[in-house]
């Protein structure tokens, strides 16, 4: 089952690369740099999925006290941080030639950065508690606070930018994307979701074995 998922993910990635590099046309204004979007956009969507799973795992763990849900939350948090990191790095590489800067305190960038540090904090907390039961309970509460905080962060950051300075770097609204580009994005999104599902199943399995091996 897991093997099959792995092969499926591999096929997805190959299809995604084909769609991103061969099938999708060269973007008129941005040129080839735009192809980074086929990694950037699916990464952030996958990260949202991962953090959604952290919330679900945390709530269900507190309700049922089944360690499997805690392992799901922990594994999803690690992958969420990974994919948020990929999002930030790939966005930064894209932003340099397109906006002329590696980083700007735009609303979306800022809230993504906050998302990143919130869950790095979650992982740090987990690393510092040895007792599995106490670790699971504390981490679940932090996972719930982190997720509930995201809409608040979103609005505060949006208004913060909107009030201080209109978006000058982003420029005019991007034109509606062409069907080819949309299809390539979709293929890559599915591919990254498959990769995420495969990684997650592996990570959860490792966590399960670790828990069994521990005295």
């Amino acid at each position, binding site marked *: 089952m897991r093997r099959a998922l792995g092969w499926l993910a591999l096929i997805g990635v190959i299809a995604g690369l084909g769609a991103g590099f061969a099938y999708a046309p060269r973007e008129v204004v941005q040129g080839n740099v735009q192809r980074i979007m086929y990694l950037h956009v699916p990464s952030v969507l996958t990260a949202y999925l991962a953090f959604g799973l952290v919330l679900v795992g945390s709530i269900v763990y*507190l309700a049922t006290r089944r360690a499997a849900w805690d392992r799901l939350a922990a594994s999803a948090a690690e992958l969420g941080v990974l994919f948020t990191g990929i999002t930030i790095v790939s966005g930064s590489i894209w932003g340099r030639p397109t906006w002329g800067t590696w980083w700007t305190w735009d609303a979306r960038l800022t809230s993504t950065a*906050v998302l990143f*540090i*919130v869950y790095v*904090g979650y992982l*740090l*907390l987990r690393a*510092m*508690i040895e*007792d599995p*039961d*106490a670790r699971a*309970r*504390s981490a*679940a*509460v*932090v996972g*719930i*606070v*982190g997720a*509930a*905080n995201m809409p*608040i*962060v979103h*609005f*505060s*950051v949006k*208004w*913060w930018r909107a*009030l201080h300075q209109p978006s000058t770097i982003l420029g005019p609204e991007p034109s509606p994307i062409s069907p080819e580009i949309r299809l390539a994005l979709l293929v890559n999104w599915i591919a990254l979701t498959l990769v995420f599902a495969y990684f997650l199943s592996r990570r959860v399995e490792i966590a399960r074995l670790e828990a069994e091996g521990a005295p």
Partner: protein
Amino acid sequence: MTDYARRTWFVLWKDLLTERRSKENLNALFFFSLLLLFLFQFALGPDRRSLEAALPGLLWLGFILAGLLGLGRSFIAERDNDCWEGLLLTPGDKSAIYLGKLVGNFILMAVVELVLLVLFGFFFGVALWPVAAPLALVLLLGTTGLAAVGTLFAAITAQLRARELLFPVLLLPAQVPILLAAVSATDAALNGTPLAEAAHWLKLLAGADLVYIVIGLLTFEFIIEG
């Protein structure tokens, strides 16, 4: 319900009494606030205008730094004196402990903030009295949010060896919206802008406070049961 209120009151009363007798936190926090003011002044230099522009941010930075020290110690008395079990023996709903601690922390922080505010007015020549009412509202909402998450995370980190490090690492990212909203609203209040123009910030603060307190009440029992 009256039982619940009574238990909340006992936790609060115990903390206030210990604080009044030992003055362990208050004295140090006052002095720390004073030092912060000096440091801000040194860091920004003598230029008055750059100072005025940065004032709301500095003010809340001061509150948050003082809060990190004060809130982080919420459960230290219980831990050091082996009274953790005593706290756990409180009958009934454990969220009463959270509520009592939260109110105690709020009072402690409010006192420190008032002193810091007066010192700010004194050292930086800001007329605070005319804007006292809107400022008080911003302070009330911002401090509630800070204390609500701070109390919860202090309970989480109280038993850890690396708590001095981990507490800020957890709390600061969670406080981003409170900081942004409070600084913007304080800016409006200090400039004498009608509060209606910062109403969306105040609503955000109130909404955030509500979310944090509800989560705190619901999850606190899971944290302290160990």
